């Protein structure tokens, strides 16, 4: 084959090949570059700069970064803010997402299926600031009037908004997982007299469980990493929504998340200051969480492929 090519073609091919290679390598370089940059800005703290205490950083609820006399950098409240909004969001979106995926793959006709898939894609295309806006106005009003609370920017508000944002990922990946279940399993179960529900919970859900788990994990990853919408919908108050008085978890409290803190404060800090470095450390912390979640999801998906 090669022999029949002219010199010009060979040169052109060489250039194109290397150009593509460069693009591929640069993607990797960018990822490492970003990681390196974030790590460089935050890491000095990990090596004890300015008497920084990692344990205190993670376990103290006191976040007073701009106090003149005694700045304190405890992110426990922020961690719990992120955790509470994300967990509640996942609790809301998983049943709806799975239900929608089951409906799309097992119950509806081809036309409705196409329509629903388009709607889901539209949902995925809404920018996060628009979601935040919906939280700030519409959802705030709804929560205030339904629950009779004075201030509707709460854990619940953020969680509902986040749940809607996670929904497209959860639905589309779950639907893929259900569709990947061989039709012969459906025929086998129905041939033995299984009803649709028996088919779903005895055969389809177990057979698709890895894919469904991956869908949930990617939804969690999305929830943890989301910034703009939660910044606008949760009230941005440093507060732990969990305490010893019933109902122990206060979904109608305002909170603040890790991501929102970085977004709101990074612009006001002096480069290289302790506050600046702490925000980068939060970034590293978030990176580790989402990286772990995505890695696990990826391994789970890979597990499916092997089967």
């Amino acid at each position, binding site marked *: 084959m090669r022999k029949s090519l002219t010199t010009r073609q060979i040169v052109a091919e060489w250039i194109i090949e290397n150009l593509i290679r460069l693009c591929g390598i640069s993607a990797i370089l960018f990822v490492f570059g970003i990681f390196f940059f974030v790590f460089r800005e935050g890491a000095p703290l990990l090596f004890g700069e300015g008497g920084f205490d990692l344990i205190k950083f993670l376990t103290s609820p006191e976040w007073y970064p701009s106090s003149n006399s005694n700045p304190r950098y405890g992110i426990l409240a922020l961690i719990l803010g992120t955790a509470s909004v994300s967990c509640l969001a996942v609790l809301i979106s998983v049943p709806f997402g799975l239900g929608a995926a089951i409906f799309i793959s097992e119950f509806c*006709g081809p036309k409705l299926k196409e329509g629903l898939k388009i709607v889901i894609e539209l949902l995925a295309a809404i920018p996060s600031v628009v979601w935040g806006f919906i939280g700030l106005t519409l959802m705030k009003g709804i929560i205030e009037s339904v629950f009779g609370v004075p201030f509707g920017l709460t854990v619940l508000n953020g969680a509902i908004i986040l749940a809607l944002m996670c929904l497209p990922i959860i639905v589309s990946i779950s639907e893929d997982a259900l569709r990947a279940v*061989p039709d*012969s*399993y*459906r*025929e*086998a*179960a*129905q*041939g*033995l*007299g*299984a*009803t649709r529900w*028996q088919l779903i919970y*005895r*055969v389809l859900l*177990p*057979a698709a469980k890895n894919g469904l788990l991956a869908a949930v994990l990617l939804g969690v990853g999305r929830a943890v990493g989301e910034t703009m919408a939660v910044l606008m919908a949760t009230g941005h108050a440093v507060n732990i929504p969990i305490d010893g008085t019933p109902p122990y978890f206060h979904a109608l409290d305002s909170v603040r998340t890790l991501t929102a803190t970085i977004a709101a404060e990074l612009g006001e800090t002096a480069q290289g200051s302790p506050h600046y470095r702490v925000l980068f450390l939060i970034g590293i912390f978030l990176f580790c969480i989402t990286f772990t979640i995505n890695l696990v999801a990826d391994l789970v998906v890979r597990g499916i492929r092997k089967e």
Partner: protein
Amino acid sequence: MSEPDPNYSVNVRDFSLWYGDFQALKNVSLNLRDGIITSLIGPSGCGKTTLLRSFNRINERYGNVTTSGEITILEKNILDADVSLPELRKSVGMVFQRPNPLPVSIYENIIFGLRIHSDRKDLRRSEMDEAVETALRQVRLWDDLKDKLKNRATSLQLEQQQKLCIARLLPLKPRIILMDEPCSALDVDGTRAVEELMVSLADDYTILIVTHNMAQARRVSQECIFMLLGEIIEHDRTEQIFLSPRNQKTTEYIEGRYG
């Protein structure tokens, strides 16, 4: 309850079936004799699978199916709207062209039918163990598999998988077993083993088997139905069909003039 004619377990009257606009079965009428193996032969695309899949109404999965006529099984027209499909499929079991064990253990495959047809609290462990052993003995897999009941059924050899697919019907005590080219995925030894198994089951069950292997139809079935283009051309004792068919088209098919 008294059956109209105890000799037949399936009566089909003027049954037609359409996939959308395409008529796949045309005014089919036939009786399947109780307690024997009947084979269904004919060129590919003539509607054998469609007819077979009408008897447990699993065709309806496709959504674009309409039917007319009557199919009476166990004194009931199974095409009636009030027929319970789970109950129908409990008494009319089906074996598919490709072995399709569920992706669970051998044990769970066999008791799957019991689980979906009984309340959880009525199922006792000893009962299930017994059902598994009986079913596996009936299909002659017990000695090979008795120590591997927890293994995944999908990891078995194809021949064992297909036998398992037969075995999992038995705990439900079906009256009729439908088989759609059950040996087409198997090698010569597997085919022989499954054929022997069918013959041994024929005492207790009415079996209808689709095959396009005429030698197989001759080996296992007492009666034989020849179909062409959605119609039944001839239905008779198997020797009769193969030795002196009445219809010219049957002769041509048996002599290998259609694909």
